[in-house]
């Protein structure tokens, strides 16, 4: 949904905004500059100029390890992506955080369908069918570990554990479920004096990686 996404980006782009670990700035010439939030003020950044350059920039972390989860807090440093038009910006952000802008727009327009973990697990088949056997206690632990923002995933969790509305994990802080909270910050710490607008990375349904993790827990249990 490029048009709606571009409208949302324009609204956020009064000057600059954060999305995940990225800072997006508007240039005087009408273009855009994207960089890692940690790299503000660095003068030694490698310059890229194509939206498709983002594919490789997102693929590996600083140590060269593959990043299967793009919303993990391990985006590599040291680059600066300069783009001419809004469509390039939209496409590149879709490489950095695939699908997240569309999810954000759906959420803003109250169209987003949110699916509890149990529903996702119950519809699995093949090798993942066994994942549905995970206990509530195990879910609490796995989600608390796998989805945590410090080292796990920077998405804001919107889904519940089950259709009764049970919180996904009591091990996660309340801020993990708040779209207004910047997931790169430590909950409870004083917020920065000035901060750009934020486009949150919203999670409307447990991802396949979490389903796989639930499966591993059940398998470990049954093989023990």
């Amino acid at each position, binding site marked *: 949904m490029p048009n709606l996404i571009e409208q949302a980006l324009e609204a956020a782009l009064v000057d600059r905004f954060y999305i995940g670990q990225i800072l997006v700035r508007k240039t005087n010439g009408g273009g855009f500059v994207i960089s890692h939030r940690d790299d503000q003020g660095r003068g030694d950044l490698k310059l890229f100029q194509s939206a498709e350059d983002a594919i490789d920039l997102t693929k590996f972390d600083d140590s060269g390890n593959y990043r299967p989860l793009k*919303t993990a807090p391990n985006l590599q440093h040291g680059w600066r992506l300069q783009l001419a038009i809004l469509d390039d910006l939209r496409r590149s952000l879709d490489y950095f955080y695939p699908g997240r802008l569309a999810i954000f727009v759906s959420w803003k327009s109250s169209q987003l*369908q949110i699916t509890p973990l149990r529903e996702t697990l119950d519809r699995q088949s093949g090798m993942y069918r066994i994942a549905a056997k995970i206990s509530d206690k195990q879910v609490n632990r796995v989600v608390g570990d796998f989805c945590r923002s410090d080292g796990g995933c920077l998405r804001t969790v919107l889904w519940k554990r089950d259709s009764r509305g049970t919180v996904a994990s009591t091990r996660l802080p309340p801020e993990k479920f708040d779209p207004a909270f910047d997931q790169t910050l430590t909950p409870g710490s004083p917020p920065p004096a000035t901060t750009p607008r934020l486009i949150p990375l919203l999670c409307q349904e447990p991802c396949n990686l979490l389903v796989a993790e639930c499966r591993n827990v059940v398998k470990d249990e049954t093989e023990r």
Partner: protein
Amino acid sequence: MTIDRANSALLIVAHGSTVNPDSSAPTLAHAAEIWRRKVFAEVACAFWKEEPSLRDALCLFDPKPIREVYVVPNFISEGYFTQTVIPRELELNGRITKRSSGQIWKYCEPVGNHSMMTELLLKRACEVAQDVSPAQTTLLIVAHGTDLNENSAVAAKREAENIRALAKYGDVLNVYMEEPPLVSDWKKLTKTPNVVVVPFFISDGLHSYEDIPVLLGIASERPVSNCRAERGEIFRHNPHRINGRSLFYAPSIGTDEGYRASSQI
């Protein structure tokens, strides 16, 4: 097929991987090429193991401007994913699904079923062994070949039969990693002085970088590097001289430039 460009979107669906950085590359390249050609108003990808997920894809197309979404599985054949996982995750009811918004989702055949596959296999075989006589060469099409991938085994057999019927190569065989005829038996299965091996997979990964080379006897068992250049090294040492014969090893068919250029519904 006529596509209303202004109101239609393409969704390319692929497996993706949590361990192989190259798994999604052919799918992303497909999408970028088709987007460049302006065939559809929108082009997007979705993955089983990467992002955006198949479930995320439900939100990717605004139903107001986009009235039709063409879903194309970037899979080598029909099988568990095309028949079970993709329809379930995308909430498809069959070939045509009408959403409550009125948006129509059209579920297409996997790209491996395209009639150009035979031509592309021939092109790839010709490119990898340019200076040899096809009449003195056996072409091996390598598929996975387990019960779970039964359909890919059938598709590889179909392609081998198509090429054999052209009577261009000395012989053409479909071989498998995990069931007979085994790729590891290539020395017994082939009689010609030259052998060309083309992996029948969508993307390069563990199978094409490591498993098949080990089964062929052109590589030893060691972990695949994270470096793209090193991963592709196995394809740059043709021909491999084994027992006085020449073996030419190609990258997976889905990575072929022509495969991408032939992208069409």
